[in-house]
């Protein structure tokens, strides 16, 4: 028996060494450990042995069986892993091959900027309001303290419609609607299209976009307005900005200002972007005129507020390096495709 075990071990070793495939391994398994395998036969032979020896060789055979099985399992794992690796070597995908369908859509630059602004203002507790494009003289002019013979009311600037309405020339009309709906304190922004009877060129368009904002509360001052607008501009341009205000005239504010921002491109040294001024006009603002507050029944003695208006098209042009406003109005998808994938720095 001892000799037989020895020989079996030897035979296994030589066969095992030759084993190179899973099929070989399977054969080996059958030959040695299978139902009719050598080891099984030896186990069967145990019955013929002396009872004393039976225990001894039985134990030995079990050890042999375990060692064979371990080797086979190990080898099997090895071969499987090798096989997987071989197969993986032959597999190849071209990652650069385009997908069948172009998955990239885009928002219009105007929407991108509008939504960014809306998010900034929403986060600061502003309600976002819409107003109609077709407005009455009252909302567009009268309630906003435009004198009856103010040049802005002339046919040159305002599109008048055949239904006694006009196309709003400024989103400021939303101020009035907001104050009619809500008593102060209030914080509202109104983005949207505005219309001016202008001829089209690289920087003028008869239709463009503005966002108007108003905040009314007790004790709102110019200092508050500067703080607020500076913060908003910082968020829009993603860096701290330097601002200054200078007198500006809008009938619905008093005092009225133009806010300028130190040119981000040249840091105020003067460049072509700021026409060598070092400063860029960025928005109109001011304290809400007492006449405007009066029109909507807000007591100007207890309340004050600031209002501001920003041209969205111009912001979009600054942000995305667009030189001609006409590109923003029309359906050319070649522009749209450039807004699928961001690839520029913020400056």
């Amino acid at each position, binding site marked *: 028996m001892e000799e037989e075990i020895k020989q079996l071990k030897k035979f296994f070793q030589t066969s095992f060494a030759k084993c190179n495939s899973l099929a070989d391994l399977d054969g080996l398994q059958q030959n040695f450990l299978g139902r009719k395998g050598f080891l099984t036969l030896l186990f069967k032979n145990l019955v013929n042995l002396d009872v004393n020896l039976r225990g001894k060789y039985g134990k030995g055979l079990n050890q042999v069986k375990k060692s064979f099985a371990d080797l086979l399992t190990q080898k099997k794992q090895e071969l499987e892993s090798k096989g997987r690796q071989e197969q993986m070597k032959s597999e190849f995908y071209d990652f650069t091959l385009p997908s069948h369908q172009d998955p990239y859509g885009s928002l219009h630059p105007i929407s991108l900027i509008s939504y960014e602004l809306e998010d900034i203002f929403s986060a600061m507790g502003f309600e976002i309001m819409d107003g109609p494009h*077709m407005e009455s003289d009252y909302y567009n002019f009268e309630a906003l303290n435009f004198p*009856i013979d103010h040049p802005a009311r002339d046919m040159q600037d305002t599109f008048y419609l055949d239904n006694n309405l006009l196309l709003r020339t400024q989103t400021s009309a939303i101020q009035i609607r907001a104050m009619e709906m809500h008593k102060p304190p209030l914080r509202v922004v109104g983005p949207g299209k505005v219309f001016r009877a202008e001829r089209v060129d690289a920087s003028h368009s008869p239709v463009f976009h503005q966002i108007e904002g108003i905040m009314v509360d007790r004790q709102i001052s110019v200092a508050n307005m500067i703080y607020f607008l500076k913060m908003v501009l910082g968020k829009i341009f993603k860096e701290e900005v330097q601002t200054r205000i200078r007198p500006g005239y809008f009938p619905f504010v008093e005092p009225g200002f133009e806010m300028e921002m130190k040119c981000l491109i040249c840091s105020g040294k003067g460049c072509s972007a700021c026409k060598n001024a070092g400063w860029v006009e960025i928005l109109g603002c001011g304290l809400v005129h007492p006449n405007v507050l009066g029109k909507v029944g807000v007591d100007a003695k207890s309340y004050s507020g600031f209002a501001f208006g920003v041209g969205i098209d111009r912001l979009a042009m600054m942000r995305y390096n667009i030189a001609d406003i006409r590109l923003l109005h029309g359906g050319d998808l070649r522009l749209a495709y450039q807004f699928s994938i961001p690839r520029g720095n913020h400056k």
Partner: protein
Amino acid sequence: MKISLNWVGDYINLGNTSLHEITNLLTLRVAEVESSYQTGQHLKDLLVAQVMSIKTHHNADKLSIVEVSWGVDKEVESIVCGANNFKVGDKVAYAPLGCQLPGGIKIKSTKIRGVLSKGMLCSEAELGFSDEHKGIMILPNSFTLGASLASGYPDQVDSILEIDNKSITHRPDLWGHFGYARELASIFKLPPPQLKTNIDWLSLKGGEAPLIKINIEEKKQVLKLICQGARGLKVALSPEIIRHRLYRTGLRAINNLVDVTNYVMLDLGQPMHVFDVDKIKSKQLTIKFANNNEKFISLYDKEYKLTDKELTFYEQSTPMAICGVIGGLNSGIDQNTKQIFLEAGNWKASLVRKTSIRLGTRTEAVQRYEKTIDPELTLFAIDKAWSILSATCPDMKRAGGLFYYDQHYFSSIKIDYRPELANRLLGINIDDDTQADILQRLGFKIKVIKNDKSTAWQVLVPSWRATRDVSIPEDLVEEVGRIFGYDKIIPQAPLFPIDSPRFNHQRLIERKLKATLVSRGFHEIINYPLTSGDVEKLLGATNQKSIKILNPALSDQDRLQSSVWPHFLTSIGENQKNIETFRQFELSKIYLQTAKQAQEIRKLALAFVPPVKQSYQTSFCQFKEDLLSLSLSMPYGIWELKESKNDFIFAHPLLQADIYCQEVQVGKVFQLNPAVHDEFAILKRTFLAEIDLEPLFALKTLTYRHTRFSKFPPVYFDISLVVSANYFYQDLVTKIKEINPKKIVAIKFLDSYPIENSNQISLTLRIVFQSFDRTLDSTEIKKLQDKVISALEKQQIFLKKMPL
């Protein structure tokens, strides 16, 4: 408008304040200075020289060789010169080598036709004095040889500020140099300039009759009018300082009588007019509204047709000048004018502006009158003009008395003001004395009324700010704030009440639906909502009444769109030229006029131009997936497509469906009608959808809800059917579901393909049977299967026979 600092210097002494500082402070405290620059710097390098000899150039008939000298011991230079308007002994402006002239010409020694020329003799144009370029400039004999031209023309060494006219629309006092002197004086704390007259004109009022009798018919339209006749005039050149100043500030000098009106206008901001008295035969003028269709020829020889809204000076039945706008050719001065009638008036701003719009002319006078200038300027203007004219016309005498009319249109404005208001509104502390100082320097007068709590003032607004500009306490806050310096305000966080904003849900939904479309490969476009009648005609019978613009800027943008499709389809056509397959969308409005009201209706237009090689059914299904995704970006539930028989001009008559949500129609999906492809230069099959946001937003908002799962296993029943090719899948599903709504829990589409040589398709479905209370046994399942098959057979739909 252009402002000369030398001119401003007539009123205040700016010392050596830098141009940069003046520019900056004016911008920050008064009005936007668009640009500023120095003039006449080159004059410092140019010399007064004398012509010593003139010889003809041996190689060129038109050129001469001129020798000039500029001092006793100085060498003589020879210059090749093209002009011949001078003689030996004349003093001329010599530009030596190395100096630079306006326009960037640098003087170098050059050979002209073989002769070396060292320097240049300059014309007025080359010096920047005028447009005169016929010959070189001959200098006055009194000029010292060798002196710089700057010393001869010190006023030409100047600084010019270009003010943005838009920034002074509300400041009638800033349309002349004097206004800037007043502002700069208060910024730099210089003695405030005062206007004074040389002659006590008011004492002449009501004496002798005026040279021309003025009859004002429209007394309400004339706010103030002062006129004075004069004789003994002689048309000549204006003094050079006047000519040069006019030129530097953008006007052209003509002669002393014309220049004086322009000069006074730029000086004080008060337009003037001069009539040639000899041309007013009757010696009478009437101010009245013109006759309709009256012809009028302006002093620039341009013809206008007047209406009965134009306030006009008439001599009998002939219009002589349009008040506040422009003078007439028939009464204008010419070379022989000897007697004049000087006029300084003030007219209703709206009247002047409307006339200028009707006539289409926006003269310098109009630009000033439409801002409602101070009527008090009229007298100062007459006085100033008188003193300027007397310089060139020493024989000038007053002819007739002073005509003086004053409606006292503007009453004086007194504002009750508390200095604390400025502090409260600006968010800064400016003490009472500083505020008073600022206001007083600007011409406001303050009467202090003390009371217990705080200082109260009564502030009298000066006439030049009282025409509309300053009327309420907040206006005074602006005056105090700007001169004190807005830059001194320290930004301060406002105290926000903590409350969440009211959300604009519709806008949030709009954003979500856009985001969904973008993630499915759609590109957003924005078109003008303006369109034309020609474009709207394309809408054919579906066209509704569009809203027209009364004053369109362009004829192809004369109304508001009543449909999104024409612009949208045009852009699809354009984009098909560049891109093979794409998706685009636009969220815009259409504008409709109903009997009761004007409506703005939000529309979402979608387009899918599929790959040409892809089957139409596949392409459509992709588009449908887009639509269903879109529907799920909104809280109203999934959309259903239903058969549509709309007569919509852009839709393929058969390939169209209506979109329903909560049983309400919210849009339509269709293939573009091939009949209109050409109209929009569309070449390929295009799928479109129009979503109506208004009915969608009116729907109930739905939410997600869990129902319990069945504990018992589902049983799948897969069948292949033969159905007619134009049978709707959805109808089939409904039929099957009806058989046993409780046990048939789902029907899934597995496959379909057309059966060759037939008008039928093979359709494979999986029907899922499941019960909530038990496991279905085989008899039950068999029963259900049979029921399905027999129900379908009733509809003439049969199981597909499997080939053997």
